[in-house]
C-alpha cells in the first residue's frame, strides 16, 4: 500500500486522538485476549458447530486498544494482501465496527474467511511490534479481523465495496478457490466483467470441499460469495475450462485474460504395500465426502466410512481437519501418525491444540510401512516403525530416519492419507504452450504471476504446489494488478 496514504490515514484527527487517549504503558500491560471456544466434550459431537466462538464487543475493543497504531506498521509486511491493519483495528477500538469491516474489504475479498483460517502467527502477528520489540504476545489481529467481518455480516448492513465504471473487458478465472475469488474481487473493483468458472457443483474450492465447518462454516463462505456477486462477479459451476469449452472458445466469446487457480488436484500416496485396500483414502476424498457432499448426514446419497479406529497419516492442517472430522463421525480412537516430531508439524499450533483437547492421539516419529485387510479387502491393521531425527534435510528440518527393530502393529478400520498433493494436470494438459515445472506446477513470473502465455496468469496451489488460503489470495491480488496493467498496455498499443 502507498506509504503516503497510510500516513494520511494515520494522521486523521480521530486516530491521533485515539492514540493519546491511553498511555503506551497501559496498552502494553493488557494481556492478549483468549478466544472463547466451545467445550471439547460438546464440540466433538457436531461436525458443523464452530469451535472458536469469536470475541464479544468488549473483548474486541479491549484487544484493539493493545494495538499501538505504530507509525511504521510492520504487521502489514506480513500480510500477503496488504490489509491496512492499524486502520481496521483502530476503528474497532473507537467502536466503528462497520468502518473496520470496510477497511478490511479495501484489499481482502474474504475477510471472514481469513480471520478464521489464516496462520496469523506466521504472518501479520509474527511481525507485530509486541513480538518484535516487546517480546510479548502479538495483538490478536486474526481474532479482530474475524470480529469485524462477523459484526458486519450479523448487522445485516453489509457494505459493498465500490467498483469502477464497467470497462466491458471480459476476464475469467479457472477455479473458484481463494486465489480465484481474490482475483475476481479485485478485477471487478477495477471495472472488469469477471466470470468465475468452477468444475464442481459448488463455488468456493477448498473453502467448501476441504476446510470443515467446525473451522469455517459454509454460511460464512456463502456470505462472502454473495458480496462478490453483488459487486458483479458472475459464477459458472459445472464448467471445466479447457474441456467443457476450450480456451479458444472463450477467447472467441471475448475473454481477454485468464487467471488459473485450479488448485492442488491429485492427492499423494506413499506407495507402500496394501495402500489400495478399501478403507484407505486420501484426505481430499474423506473431506470432500463429508464437507462438500455432506456424507455424514442421513439424507445424503454420498456414503462415507465411519471408522472406529482411525489413523490419519500426516502432520499438516489437512491431517488435523481429517482426524477431527473422524472424531466427530464417531471414532473411538483417532490418531495422528507423523514421521517427524511435533515441533516440525506444519499444522497451525491452534489446530494441534484443538485436536489434543478433543482427544486426538498423536503418534509422532512413526511411519507406516504396510497395510493389511480382511478377506473382503477392508483394511484392519497397519504396520509401522518408529523414527528418530537425524541431520537436517533440504527443508531445514531434521530428517526422520527409521529406528532399527522398532516395528509395531496397530489395529485400524479407516486410514486417511494426508501427505500432500500434486498439481492438477487438467488445465496444463489443455494448453501445450503453457510452461510447467518438473512437478507439474505452472511456471509464472513471481512478481506478476504471469505465465508463459501472456494473457494467462496463475496463482495458488497450481503454482505453489501447496500453500495456504492467504498466500493464494495474495497471488490472486498480484495477478489482478498485473493483468490490469497488461490489458491496459495491450489495448493502448492497438
Amino acid at each position, binding site marked *: 500500500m502507498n506509504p503516503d496514504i497510510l500516513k494520511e490515514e494515520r494522521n486523521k484527527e480521530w486516530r491521533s486522538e485515539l492514540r493519546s487517549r491511553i498511555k503506551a504503558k497501559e496498552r502494553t500491560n493488557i494481556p492478549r485476549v483468549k478466544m472463547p471456544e466451545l467445550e471439547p466434550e460438546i464440540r466433538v459431537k457436531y461436525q458443523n458447530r464452530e469451535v472458536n466462538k469469536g470475541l464479544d464487543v468488549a473483548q474486541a475493543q479491549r484487544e484493539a486498544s493493545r494495538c499501538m497504531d505504530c507509525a511504521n506498521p510492520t504487521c502489514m509486511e506480513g500480510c500477503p494482501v496488504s490489509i491496512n491493519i492499524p486502520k481496521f483495528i483502530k476503528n474497532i477500538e473507537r467502536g466503528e465496527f462497520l468502518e473496520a469491516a470496510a477497511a478490511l474489504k479495501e484489499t481482502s475479498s474474504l475477510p471472514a474467511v481469513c480471520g478464521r483460517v489464516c496462520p496469523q502467527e506466521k504472518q501479520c502477528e509474527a511481525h507485530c511490534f509486541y513480538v518484535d520489540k516487546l517480546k510479548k504476545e502479538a495483538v490478536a489481529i486474526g481474532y479482530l479481523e474475524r470480529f469485524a467481518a462477523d459484526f458486519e455480516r450479523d448487522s445485516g448492513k453489509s457494505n459493498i465495496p465500490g467498483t469502477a465504471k464497467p470497462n466491458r473487458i471480459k476476464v475469467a478465472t479457472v477455479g473458484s478457490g481463494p486465489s480465484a475469488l481474490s482475483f475476481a474481487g479485485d478485477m471487478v473493483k477495477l471495472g472488469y466483467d469477471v466470470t468465475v468458472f468452477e468444475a464442481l*457443483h459448488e463455488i468456493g474450492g477448498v473453502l467448501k470441499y476441504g476446510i470443515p465447518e467446525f473451522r469455517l462454516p459454509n454460511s460464512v463462505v456463502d456470505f462472502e460469495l454473495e458480496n462478490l456477486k453483488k459487486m458483479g462477479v458472475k459464477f459458472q459451476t459445472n464448467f471445466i475450462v479447457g474441456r467443457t469449452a476450450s480456451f479458444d472458445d472463450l477467447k472467441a466469446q471475448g475473454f481477454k485474460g485468464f487467471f488459473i487457480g485450479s488448485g492442488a488436484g491429485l492427492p499423494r500416496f506413499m506407495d507402500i504395500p496394501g495402500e489400495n485396500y478399501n478403507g484407505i483414502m486420501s484426505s481430499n476424498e474423506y473431506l470432500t465426502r463429508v464437507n462438500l457432499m455432506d456424507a455424514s448426514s442421513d439424507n445424503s446419497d454420498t456414503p462415507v466410512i465411519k471408522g472406529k479406529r482411525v489413523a490419519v497419516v500426516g502432520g499438516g492442517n489437512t491431517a488435523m481437519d481429517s482426524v477431527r472430522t473422524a472424531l466427530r463421525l464417531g471414532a473411538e480412537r483417532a490418531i495422528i501418525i507423523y514421521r517427524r516430531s511435533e515441533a516440525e508439524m506444519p499444522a497451525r499450533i491452534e489446530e494441534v491444540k484443538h485436536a489434543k483437547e478433543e482427544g486426538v492421539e498423536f503418534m509422532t516419529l512413526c511411519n507406516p510401512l504396510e497395510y493389511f485387510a480382511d478377506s473382503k479387502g477392508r483394511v484392519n491393521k497397519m504396520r509401522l516403525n518408529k523414527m528418530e531425527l537425524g541431520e537436517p534435510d533440504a527443508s531445514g528440518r531434521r530428517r526422520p530416519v527409521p529406528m532399527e527393530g522398532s516395528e509395531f502393529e496397530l489395529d485400524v478400520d479407516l486410514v486417511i492419507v494426508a501427505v500432500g498433493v500434486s498439481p492438477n494436470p487438467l488445465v496444463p494438459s489443455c494448453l501445450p504452450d503453457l510452461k510447467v515445472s518438473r512437478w507439474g506446477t505452472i511456471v509464472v513470473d513471481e512478481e506478476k504471476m504471469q505465465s508463459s502465455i501472456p494473457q494467462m496468469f496463475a496463482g495458488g496451489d497450481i503454482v505453489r504446489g501447496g500453500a495456504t488460503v492467504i498466500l493464494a489470495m495474495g497471488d490472486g491480488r498480484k495477478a489482478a494488478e498485473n493483468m490490469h496493467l497488461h490489458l491496459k498496455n495491450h489495448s493502448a498499443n492497438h
Partner: protein
Amino acid sequence: MNKIISKEYFSDKVVKLVVENPLIARSRKPGNFVILRIGEKGERFPLTIAGADPVKGTITLVVQIVGVSSSKLVALEPGDHITDLVGPLGKPTDIRKIGTVLAAGGGVGVAPLLPIIEAFKKAGNRVVTVIAARNKDLIILEDEAKKWSDELIIMTDDGSYGRKGLVTAGMEEIILREKIDECIVIGPAIMMKFASMLTKKYNIPTQASLNSIMVDGTGMCGACRVSVGGKLKFTCVEGPEFDAHQIDFDEMLMRLGGYKEEEKKANEIYSQKI
C-alpha cells in the same frame, strides 16, 4: 441446460436418456465421461458418454439401475433436468488407423463402446464387434453396433439370442480366424478381466475402459485409483482407458466393492421410500 429430451427403456433395468447439453455435445470425444448429480443431496457419479449430436446439442447416456443414484436418474422424465452434469472428463480414446480392431462390449458397456467403434470405423479400420449379455433382453444397441461394424457377433450366456457362450468365446473365434491389431473392451470389471486374459494369451494390444468409483472426477479425490503395471493411476484424469494387460483387475474388483455395505443400506432405505 441438462434437460432430458427423451427416455427409452432397453429393459427393466437399462435406460437410454438423451440429455440437452450443447457444450458437452460439441466438446466430447469417444471415450470421455461425465459426472452427474441428481437432487441437492445426490451423490456425484460417472457415466461414459454413449453418443452426442452436436447439431441438436444433446448427449446420450445409457444407464443401468444398480443403486440409489441410477434409480434417481432413471426416475427423471422428459422435460426434467439433471441437477448437475459436468464434462467431458477423462482422456479420449486413442483413435488411429491401425488395421483390424476387435471391440467387445458386455451388458451396458456396449453403449460407451458405440462412439469408439464409430470413430475407429471412420478412421478407416476394419471393425469386428462382439456384444454380449446374460440373455436376449439384456442385449442392447444391436442395430447401432452393426452400423459401425464390418461384422457383429452376439453372445448370450443362456443362448436365448445369438450364440450361446461368454464374450470371450466370441472373441477367441475371431482371433483364431484373422489377424487382430488392437482390441478394446468395455463392460463389467469381471468381463474385462477375462477378455484381457484372453488377448494377453494372443499378445494383442488391448484397452479397457474402467468404471471406478469417483467423487469429483477431476483428479482431486483419488477414489478411482487403480494399479496399472504396478503403478498408481487415477482413472478420472489418466484413464478411463488403460492397457488392459497391465491392469490389476482383482484389486479393481475389490475396490469397486469398497462401499458395498453403505450402498446396500442406502438402496434398502430408498426402495422403502418409493
